[in-house]
């Protein structure tokens, strides 16, 4: 991908709105996103439900799920198959539990239990619970099985509770996507505006916040326009299209204009970040009693000219999504969950879509970034300039590489959000993020 050649900020002058003319909010450092001169977000499509789904039961690191079904059981779409303290895992399709794999490996390497469900035509027992309970808002939100994923995955229920208890005044609705300004949240804002806004209202109401700020890339003209024309009371804040603007820390910095201590959470500043997709699903759950069985994701790269946004049933194998969109994976191409700079490459095409799959990016063999295996840092300082967390990437990665983990930690190793900007700009292609990951995991292993 020739990202460097696309760095000129695109179509600002084509926008007429007042608010866009003011300087878009942002943060220090970071990498300009590719902004095509002219683009239209493609309509969000809904992919058909697959015959088989694979459902890993670990969406929240701290919450273990209790399995609610046995092998061979018949289950109905929307029925809980796993139950945590404050969240549920719902069956995405009706069918039969084909297999329960206790050692399923997630793309990040963690092990979890996964349930394979095959669609079947058999009769279902009537007593299966309905999709979303009828009682109060809170119950409905709990019944959606939703988790809030703007940073680390927390059950939405928990998130709302902490927002309440910390008396958060402003909700920041994150309409920004990893790496593509034509991404899923922008499409949601321009094509499902009423649902999105209704969801935001519900969230504000339930969380006890006073107001909401919707952050949109200043370059996403369509999304901005739809939001402004809707006459919503929420404040709409255009932000600069930069990577990693979608990250919670930097989004809060852009909105509040304040760089804050790494130990503080956004809630300590009186704000809290919630993703646009969450708001959308909340509105559907509360107003239409529909559970979040689909996942809105962006597929980009490969042979696609423009990123495509689609609703995909949770548990669908990636291969099926790509086939449906007419994408071929050639030998040597890389499939990345979460964008070219900070994503996780997957080798198994049957990896299922989960609530954490936001972006599937296919990097052609010819576009691969080749890391150097013996390069030595010559202290050019580019990585220091670009690091949005104001770290010294060459230093922490160098310390980790040399096994000097305590020194790396003293230089704020754990502040790094693994955005990948440093490794991208490094002229000698040092795999910095990988060294940083090694340092973090080595220190965690020492501690545990």
């Amino acid at each position, binding site marked *: 991908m020739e990202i460097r050649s696309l760095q000129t900020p695109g179509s600002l002058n084509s926008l007429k709105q007042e608010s866009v003319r003011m300087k878009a909010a942002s943060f220090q450092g970071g990498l300009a996103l590719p902004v095509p001169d002219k683009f239209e977000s493609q309509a969000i499509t809904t992919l058909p439900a697959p015959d088989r789904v694979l459902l890993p039961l670990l969406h929240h690191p701290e919450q273990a799920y209790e399995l609610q079904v046995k092998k061979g059981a018949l289950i109905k779409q929307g029925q809980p198959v796993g139950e945590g303290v404050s969240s549920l895992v719902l069956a995405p399709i009706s069918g039969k539990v084909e297999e329960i794999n206790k050692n399923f*490996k997630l793309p990040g390497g963690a092990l979890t239990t996964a349930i394979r469900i095959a669609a079947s035509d058999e009769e279902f027992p009537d007593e299966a619970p309905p999709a979303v309970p009828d009682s109060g808002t809170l119950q409905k939100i709990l019944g959606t099985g939703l988790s809030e994923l703007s940073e680390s995955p927390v059950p939405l229920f928990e998130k709302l509770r902490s927002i309440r208890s910390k008396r958060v005044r402003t909700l920041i609705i994150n309409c920004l996507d990893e790496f593509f300004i034509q991404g899923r949240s922008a499409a949601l804002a321009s094509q499902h505006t009423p649902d999105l806004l209704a969801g935001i209202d519900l969230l504000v109401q339930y969380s006890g916040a006073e107001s909401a700020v919707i952050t949109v890339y200043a370059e996403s003209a369509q999304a901005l326009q739809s939001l402004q024309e809707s006459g919503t009371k929420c404040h709409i804040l255009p932000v600069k299209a930069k990577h990693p603007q979608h990250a919670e820390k930097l989004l809060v910095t852009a909105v509040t204009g304040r760089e804050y201590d790494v130990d503080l959470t956004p809630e300590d500043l009186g704000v809290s970040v919630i993703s646009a997709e969450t708001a959308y699903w909340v509105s559907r759950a509360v107003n239409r009693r529909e559970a979040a069985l689909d996942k809105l994701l962006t597929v980009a790269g490969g042979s696609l000219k423009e990123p495509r946004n689609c609703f995909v049933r949770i548990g669908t194998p990636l291969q099926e999504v790509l086939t449906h969109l007419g994408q071929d994976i050639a030998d040597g191409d890389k499939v990345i969950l979460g964008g070219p700079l900070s994503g996780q*490459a997957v*080798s198994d095409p049957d990896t299922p879509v989960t609530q954490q799959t936001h972006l599937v990016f296919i990097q052609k063999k010819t576009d691969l*970034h080749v890391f150097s295996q013996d390069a030595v840092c010559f202290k050019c300082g580019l990585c220091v300039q670009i690091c949005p967390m104001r770290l010294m990437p060459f230093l922490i990665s160098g310390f980790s590489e040399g096994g000097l983990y305590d020194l790396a930690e003293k230089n704020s190793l754990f502040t790094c959000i693994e955005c990948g900007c440093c490794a991208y700009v490094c002229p000698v292609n040092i795999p910095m993020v*990988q060294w940083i*990951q*090694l340092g973090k995991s080595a220190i965690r292993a020492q501690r545990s």
Partner: protein
Amino acid sequence: MIPILTAIGAMAFLGLLLSIVLGLAAKVFYVYVDPRIEQICDALPGANCGGCGYAGCSDFAEAIVCLGASPDGCVAAGASTTEAVCSIMGLSAGLGERYVARIFCQGDEQKAVQRFDYNGALDCAAAIVSTGGDKACEFGCVGLGTCVRACPFDAMEMGGNRLPLVDQNLCTGCGNCVQACPREIPLLIPISQKTANLCSSHEAGKTVKQVCSIGCIGCSVCKKKCPEGAVDMEDKLAVVNPAHCTGQGVCLEKCPTGSMVSLQSPALEKPEASSAQETA
């Protein structure tokens, strides 16, 4: 003339005074240093590899003399050094068995299933953290040579098939490679051990078959057939007990995958492949 004489006189007096002070100090603050420490230090290789478990050669020499450490603790030295150390200490050299590193994985590029093309940091631990390693086996060698770079004696090299090779003559058994490896692939075993199961996988046989054609599938036929009872099964992996193995090779014939290997042929750890690669 007078000032010169005064100066000379003063210097002579000062010299005399200081030499008396130094002479007294040497008597009063005398510390006995065993001359053997220095002798042993000279006899040791001076590589400061740390294989003996001490901070360096001189630390080890002091430990032998003062703390009664075993004189054959130096892993880097040959038998002659140990003998020299023993004679300095006035001990008879009861030589211990020499341990060397062996690579307990045979899953090379052809035999182990590869999941993807790895492109990243040249470090086995880093590869495991970020990607799990490109070879499908979760117990096997990652093949990025972290152990090779950790060897202070140049006894290791990376074979062309992405498995490390150990030169048994140069290996001193210092254990640096064992420490460096994130997967426990190099292990120290007695040089006289005749047979070994060169696989580290504790997976069930079915999984092993899916990821590697030469791995131990845990069928335990070796355990059943060994006339000396030298094979134990440890969590689905056959382990040869060197104390009992006599090298008859029954297990070698019975092993269905070739995971069990005779260590008696000198060609094993330094096969032609490596020299061919050097010339190529």
